[in-house]
């Protein structure tokens, strides 16, 4: 178990810059999730930590030593791949023991460590099977078993659940969470799925275009997104954004409005605004409450209702033609075409100086 420190890490492929100076601190025993849209560089960053990609610039420290130029096997890491990367011609036992076979460990040691990993992952009954006889979830378990046997300082997961179906993904997600509690090891987990990020992480690192957008605890990022990108990326359904005009700037708030939104005062949290500029207002669909006729701050017409059971999602077109989503209680089903008015607490809204 160890700390991992990334300082000004950069990666170029020829002239193309894919990682543009990343600083991340991962504490001992922490579960850190790199999340971002595809192409944001999160997998590249993980592969640089693993040693599968060269680091163009910056320093990577694991446990206080710079490992930039160390072989992957000497960095004290273990990696679980999206495609499992288990060896098709070996049994589960041989796969899990692969690292020990490479190190020429004794038979007794192999048996002991494989049994231990199998116990942790509850796959004792699978040990003599071949990968072709296993389901996707079981294969990923084998890959995790192989990682456990390495007894690494840091576990690296590269989208480990992306090849699994939805139900299995949830099971495995919980298992990985439990594994982290049991082992207490540092883990770095890459995913494009914000649900996995929210559920698993002690700390989320949101990446976009090779840069860190925001780092923090899941709920911190959810409630206090630092910018428009993080605000839109986390949360399902994603946050509603509206173009608004700044009417006044006060000490802690700005007053904004637009044709379909009555003037409200929203805390600006230190972000700079000037009167008259166009800004973006963000409100999570969950914080919109239906209001009576003529009441409320937002006015529009229902165009679509989706019943999800636990909640009802309705899509509303506002007076100025823009669309927003509201997530309402389960039984508040509204038929398309009816007028809809919404109210919300301005303190739960976010205002960003940038426009979409």
């Amino acid at each position, binding site marked *: 178990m160890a700390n991992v420190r990334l300082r000004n890490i950069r990666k170029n492929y020829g002239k193309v810059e894919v990682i543009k100076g990343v600083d991340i601190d991962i504490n001992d025993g922490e579960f850190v999730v790199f999340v971002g849209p595809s192409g944001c560089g999160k997998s590249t960053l993980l592969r640089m930590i693993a040693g*599968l990609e060269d680091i163009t610039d910056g320093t990577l420290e694991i446990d206080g030593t710079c490992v930039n130029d160390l072989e*992957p096997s000497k960095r004290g890491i273990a*990696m679980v*791949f999206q495609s499992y990367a*288990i*060896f098709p011609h*070996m049994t589960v036992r041989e796969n899990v023991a*692969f*690292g020990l076979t*490479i190190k020429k460990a004794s038979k007794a040691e192999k048996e002991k460590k494989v049994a231990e990993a199998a116990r942790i992952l509850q796959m004792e009954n699978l040990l003599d099977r071949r990968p072709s006889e296993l389901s996707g979830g079981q294969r990923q378990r084998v890959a995790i078993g192989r990682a456990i046997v390495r007894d690494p300082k840091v576990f690296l997961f590269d989208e480990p659940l992306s090849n699994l179906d939805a139900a299995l993904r949830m099971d495995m997600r919980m298992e990985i969470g439990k594994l982290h509690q049991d082992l207490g090891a540092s883990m770095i987990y890459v995913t494009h799925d914000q649900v996995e990020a929210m559920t698993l992480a002690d700390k989320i690192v949101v990446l976009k275009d090779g840069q860190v957008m925001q780092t923090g605890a899941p709920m911190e990022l959810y409630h206090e997104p630092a910018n428009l990108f993080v605000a839109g990326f986390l949360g399902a359904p994603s946050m509603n954004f509206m173009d608004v005009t700044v009417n006044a700037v006060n000490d802690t708030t700005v007053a904004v409005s637009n044709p379909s939104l009555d003037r409200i005062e929203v805390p600006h949290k230190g972000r700079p605004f000037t009167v008259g500029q166009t800004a973006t207002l963000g409100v999570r669909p969950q914080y919109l409450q239906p209001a009576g006729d003529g009441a409320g701050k937002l006015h529009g017409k229902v165009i679509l209702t989706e019943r999800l059971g636990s909640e009802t999602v309705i899509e509303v077109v506002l007076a100025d033609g823009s669309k927003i989503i509201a997530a309402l209680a389960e039984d508040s089903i509204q038929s398309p075409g009816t007028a809809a008015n919404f109210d919300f607490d301005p303190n739960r809204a976010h205002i960003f100086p940038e426009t979409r």
Partner: protein
Amino acid sequence: MASKLTTSNRAGWAFALPGFGLIALFIVVPFFFAFYLSLTNQRLISPNPTEFVGLENYRNLLSISVLSIEPEVDETGALIRDADGNLAYPRVRTFTRDNPDYPQYAGMREWFRWHSGDTAKVVVATDVVFWKSLRNTLMFVLVVAPVQGALALGLALLINQKLRGINIYRAIYFMPVVVSIVVVSLLWRFLYAEEGLLNSILSAFSFGLFEGRDWLGDENTALGAIKAMSIWQAVGFHMVIWLSGLQTISPTLYEAASIEGASKWQTFRYVTWPGLRNTAVLVLIVITMQAFALFAQIDVMTNGGPLDSTTTVVFQAVERGYGKQDISGGSAISVILFLLVLSISLIQRYLTREK
């Protein structure tokens, strides 16, 4: 759009007929014809009617036995020795020519002999040249199949890298495959000639110590020379097959192995080689079958000589069937070769089966 043409069964057969007919005429019919002809005394051009002779062609080809010959003794029963102290043996032809005591050896000739004590064991066969061709072919296969397969794998591993200009190397190694084997054989005949390139190089590198030899004219080196040239010629083809096998192995398996700290050799042993299993079976069977069909090199370079040291089964089949116009004898050789290759392929498949 199902028109009458595409749904009509008769139209379908009509379309298939030309191809089907050609395959039948030039592959299926000759295949069965060979079986039939090998049981007759058919000659290529002959005024006599064809007669059914049963397995006589096979008997002529395959009859082989070991003749034990005791050394000659004088009246006192003592062994007769010549000036060098060597024993004297009666000539083999005294047993095989018109000797009513040994009807089983009639018409046979000596292939080779060894000594067991004072007794000479002489291997005699009705058709010694066929047996020599069989031995040469097997020796060729036994060397060419493993060496060519291994060399091709080595080359495939070398060129399966992301390097600038790697395609140039791929092209270079593949070039001999594209050149006609007849042309290649002609060129190598020049290389192997007494005043040829190979002798010049060897002489230059040994500072004149190496005296040139006629590689194809010496019965001890002729088959070896043809083996070397054949390996060189087709290695590129098998390299490409290995390469395609290598490229089906998922790169993440290599990454997983590197994270586990596998050395180059361990990576090959645990990742590459198991991943090449099916390719290996294919390459082995293809090389074996190609090696058994050795003909063009022999025909161009040595014509089977010197002293039958490079004659092969296919060469004998052609020589017999067309050279000597003994089409039934040639057919019998073809059938024997077919059964030989079939059984070896089946054995290989059995040995390399998925366990």
